[in-house]
């Protein structure tokens, strides 16, 4: 046994030093390499999971926003049509009012004008009768004068 140990140069102190070496390296690597990298990988994984969740939430929000938009648009269209119809009927009503008033006014103006024309006619007749009478008198006087002379 001693020969084997001597042939391989086995030395308990060297083995101990190697175990200490291993322990030192392990602690150093845990502190400087494993923990930072594993923590980084974990953080990145969490970030990616969060990112996917956020993206899904955003997609859901977009979908609901789209649906809401559709509803709002449909409502708006319906309301616009209603408003349009109301405005049209109101405009129609106003227009027929205006036309009716205009017709009434026109009728009144016509009646007024006819009355005035009537009066003028009468006046003219009266005037022409007086004139005729005057002319007749003058003519009679003239005839009488000629006869007397």
């Amino acid at each position: 046994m001693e020969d084997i140990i001597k042939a391989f140069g086995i030395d308990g102190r060297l083995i101990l030093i190697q175990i200490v070496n291993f322990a030192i390296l392990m602690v150093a690597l845990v502190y400087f390499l494993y923990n930072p990298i594993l923590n980084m990988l974990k953080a990145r994984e969490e970030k990616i999971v969060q990112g996917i969740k956020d993206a899904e939430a955003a997609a859901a929000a977009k979908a609901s926003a789209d649906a809401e938009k559709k509803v709002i648009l449909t409502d708006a269209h319906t309301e616009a049509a209603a408003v349009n119809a109301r405005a049209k009927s109101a405009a129609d009503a106003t227009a027929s009012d205006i036309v009716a008033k205009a017709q009434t006014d026109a009728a009144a103006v016509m009646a007024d004008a006819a009355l005035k024309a009537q009066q003028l006619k009468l006046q003219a007749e009266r005037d022409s009768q007086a004139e005729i009478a005057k002319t007749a008198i003058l003519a009679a006087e003239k005839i009488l004068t000629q006869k007397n002379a």
Partner: protein
Amino acid sequence: MLGIATAYAAEVGISVKLAPYIVGEFLGVPITATMLTTWLTMAVLIGLAFLVNAKIATVPGKLQSVFELIIGGVYDYMSEVLESKEMARKYFPIIMTIFLFVLALNWVGLLPGVTSIGLYEVHDGAEHFTPLLYPAATDLNITIGFAIAAVVAIQLAGVLALGLFKYAGKFINFHSPIGFAVGIIELISELARLISFSFRLFGNIFAGKVLLLVVLFFVPYVVPVPLIFFEVFVGFIQAFVFAILTLFFIKLAMEAPH
């Protein structure tokens, strides 16, 4: 005196020894070439970790991407095997460090200069070449160190998951003679892991090193290139096997006895 191994090998032939090269001594403890390589590798790994940590960002750079791929991949795989993210996080450091450390040691061992740059020393009147850096897994002390760390982690996982008495009951079982025998076999196989872990890594990397040494000695050009590629692959496989076996043994240790 500083020297290059190939010139030395050409002069005196190839010498292969199982024991690590001793470069110096510190407070009575021998400092081996493999230990120096281990410290260099640790410095490189910690330096890389510093670099990644200093520039860490949500949008990763190239270096961070590579480490994210490795660390994230291992973590996901461990979560699957252990069937729990919490458990995966708990045993992640030991598995990942075994993988990265063994991989880095094996690959650093293939760099030019490792094994070839060293000192000439005179022992017993003859000149000997002692490399300053040497592939770390060719030293059984290093691989035993890894094996002990892995086996301790496995036993701890079992005790933490089942409780001390229930876990010990896997090995010491007086319910029936067969149960007792099975328990003893379990205990032996548990101890055998120390040997299989340490010798598997040692054997593979040592053999690779010897192979490269021999080929470099006989045909220094072209031929070693595919072999070096092969050793890069072996280095990865050995790191992978060590880490994955530790993971599976942890999983087995955590399971309740039947």
